[in-house]
C-alpha cells in the first residue's frame, strides 16, 4: 500500500517510539527474569556482603537455578491460585458481556433522558478500584449495617456475611460492576453501527425479536465482543486492589497476582515472587492464545 520510500520514512519516524516501548517493557521483564533465578531475601541482609552487580544494578546474589520455580509450583497455594484466577476472570467476563449486551440494547432505544442515563452507566468506570471495593464492602456487603443485610432482613432472611461466606461471587460482583461500563460502551458503539435496514429486512423475512437478536445483532457484535473479552482479560488477570481491601486473599480469593504479592512483600522473598511473575506471564499467554482460538476468528472476518 505504500512505496519503498514512504515505508522507510515510516520506519524512521516510528523508531523512537518502538525503542522507548522496548526499553519500557524489556527492563522490568528482564529484571524479573534475572531475580527469578536468584536467591533474594532483602530483610535477611544477604545482599550486604555480596557486593554490587553491574548488570542489574543490584547487589550480586547467588544464582539458584530453577529452585524458585520449583518452590512456587510445589507450594500448596499455587494451583488453587491459578483456578481462582481463572474463575474470577471467567466470571467477570460472562457477567460483563451478557449484561453489557443487554444494557447496550437498552441504551440504544430512543428514550427520555438518554444522554443522562448513558453518563450514569459510564460513571463506575471513573471510580478508583480501591474506593469502589471499599464502598461495596462497607455500604452493601457489611453483615450488620450493609444495604444488602437490610434487604435480606426486610424479606425475613438471615443476612449473610458476603465477603466470607460467598467471597468469590462477591468479588466477581464488585469487579463486574467496575468493568460493565467498559463493555457496555464498546458494545453500544457497535450496536449503533448496525444498519437499521438489516433489521427491517429480517423483520420482513419473518424473524421475531429474539431471532433478530440471535441471527442479526449478535453476529454483528461478534467483533466488539472479542475486543471486550481480550482487553478485559489482560486487566482482569492482574486484579489486586479489590481483593486487598475486601478479603485480603482469604476465603479462597487468593489469585495468582495476590499470591505473588504475598510472596514478595509478606515473606520478603523477591526471587520466589519473580518466579511467580513469570508463571503469571505464561498463564496470561495461555489464556490469550486460548481466547484468540475461540473468538479470534471474528477479528479477521
Amino acid at each position, binding site marked *: 500500500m505504500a512505496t519503498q520510500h514512504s515505508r522507510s520514512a515510516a520506519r524512521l519516524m516510528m523508531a523512537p517510539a518502538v525503542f522507548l516501548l522496548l526499553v519500557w517493557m524489556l527492563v522490568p521483564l528482564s529484571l524479573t527474569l534475572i531475580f527469578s533465578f536468584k536467591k533474594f531475601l532483602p530483610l535477611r541482609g544477604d545482599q550486604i556482603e555480596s557486593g554490587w552487580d553491574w548488570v542489574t544494578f543490584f547487589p550480586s546474589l547467588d544464582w539458584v537455578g530453577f529452585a524458585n520455580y520449583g518452590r512456587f509450583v510445589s507450594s500448596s497455594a499455587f494451583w488453587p491460585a491459578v483456578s481462582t484466577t481463572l474463575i474470577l476472570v471467567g466470571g467477570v467476563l460472562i457477567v460483563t458481556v451478557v449484561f453489557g449486551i443487554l444494557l447496550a440494547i437498552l441504551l440504544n432505544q430512543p428514550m427520555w433522558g438518554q444522554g443522562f442515563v448513558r453518563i450514569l452507566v459510564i460513571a463506575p468506570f471513573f471510580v478508583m478500584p480501591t474506593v469502589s471495593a471499599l464502598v461495596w464492602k462497607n455500604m452493601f456487603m457489611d453483615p450488620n449495617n450493609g444495604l444488602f443485610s437490610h434487604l435480606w432482613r426486610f424479606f425475613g432472611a438471615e443476612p449473610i456475611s458476603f465477603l466470607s461466606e460467598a467471597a468469590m461471587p462477591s468479588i466477581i460482583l464488585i469487579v463486574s460492576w467496575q468493568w460493565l461500563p467498559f463493555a457496555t460502551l464498546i458494545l453500544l458503539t457497535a450496536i449503533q453501527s448496525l*444498519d437499521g435496514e438489516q433489521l*427491517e429486512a429480517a423483520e*420482513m*423475512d419473518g424473524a421475531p425479536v429474539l431471532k433478530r437478536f440471535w*441471527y442479526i445483532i449478535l453476529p454483528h457484535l461478534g467483533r466488539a465482543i472479542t475486543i471486550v473479552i481480550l482487553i478485559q482479560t489482560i486487566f482482569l488477570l492482574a486484579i489486586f486492589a479489590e481483593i486487598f481491601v475486601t478479603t485480603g486473599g482469604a476465603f479462597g480469593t487468593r489469585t495468582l497476582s495476590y499470591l505473588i504479592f504475598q510472596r514478595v512483600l509478606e515473606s520478603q522473598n523477591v526471587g520466589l515472587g519473580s518466579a511467580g511473575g513469570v508463571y503469571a506471564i505464561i498463564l496470561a499467554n495461555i489464556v490469550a492464545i486460548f481466547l484468540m482460538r475461540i473468538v479470534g476468528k471474528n477479528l479477521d472476518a
Partner: protein
Amino acid sequence: MGQIQLNQVTKSFGDVQVIPPLDLTIEDGEFCVFVGPSGCGKSTLLRLIAGLEDVSSGHIAINGKDATMTPPAKRGLAMVFQSYALYPHMTVRKNIAFPMKMAGMSEDEQKRRIDAAATALNLTDYLDRKPGQLSGGQRQRVAIGRSIVREPDAFLFDEPLSNLDAALRVGMRLEISELHERLQTTMIYVTHDQVEAMTMADKIVVLRSGYIEQVGSPLDLYHAPRNKFVAGFIGSPKMNLIEGPEAAKHEAHTIGIRPEHIDVSKTEGTWKGVVGVAEHLGSDTFIHVHDTGLADMITVRIIGDIEAKHGDTVYLTPQLDQMHRFDDKGLRIA
C-alpha cells in the same frame, strides 16, 4: 393474488404530515411505479405498505382483507432495499435461505428453491461467498433472490438500482422486467428516475409532497399529463413550457411542447433563435436554443444527426397537434 388497496391513508412524523389522505389501488399482477422528486414521500408510502411504519390514519387492505394492523412478516410481501440489506456474516446461500428458515420450511424444499433462484439470477457460482465479496449488481441479485424464494404476494422495491452504474442499471432493469413477466406477481417499485418508470411500469403514480399528481399508464402520462408538474416530470429531455403572449395565442396560460415535437429549419419557421449547446448522441441530437423571446431556453430533439453549432441561427416550428395547453392553475385544458 396481490391486490393492494390504500384507503384515506395518512402519515405524520410529529407535526409534519408527510402523506396527506391518499387513495390508491394496485391491481393483482400489476407493475406499479412510484415516481416523484426527492423527499416527496415515496419511500414512506412503500414502508407504510410494507408495515415498517404505522399509518397515522386510514386503512390498508391486501387481497381485500384489512391489513392495517398486521405485522410486516404476516403481510405476505417481500422488500428489496436500496442498500440491499444483506446479512453480511451469512453466505449468499444462507442469506437466501433465511426467510425460508424463519418460516420453518423443510431443508429439501429450501435447497430446491435456493437452486431455482440461483439459476434464475445467475448466482450459482457465488452461493458460498459472503456479500462483502460480491459486486453491486451481484448483491442486488442476492437481495432479489432472497425475496423471491418466499413466493410473496407482492414485491416492494425501494430504488433498487440507484447504487449501480449506468450500464448495470440498464441490465438490471431488464432483468426485473423479465422477472415480472415470468412471475406475474404484483410489484411496487420506487424510483426517482423517470426512464425506469416509463420503461418498466404498467402503472405510474406521480407523487409530489405526498399528493398523488396523476395515476396512469406511461403513455397516458406522456400524451395527456394532467398538469404542468407531471408534464415537466415525465419525458426526457423535459417538456418546454412557454408562458405569456405566445401562450395566449393558443388561449392558454401556459403551453407545453416536447422537444421531439418541434421541427427545426435553417431557413424558416414560427420561432427564431440561436443555438447554445448542441448535444450529439449519434442517434439523436439535443439542441438548446436561446434568444427566442419565449423562454430562457427551448430544447429540441432531432432524430439522427444535424449540422448545428454554437451561434447558428435556427427556426423552430412546433407540431400544433402535439401541443399541451394549461390554465393559470397549471391544470390541463382538454
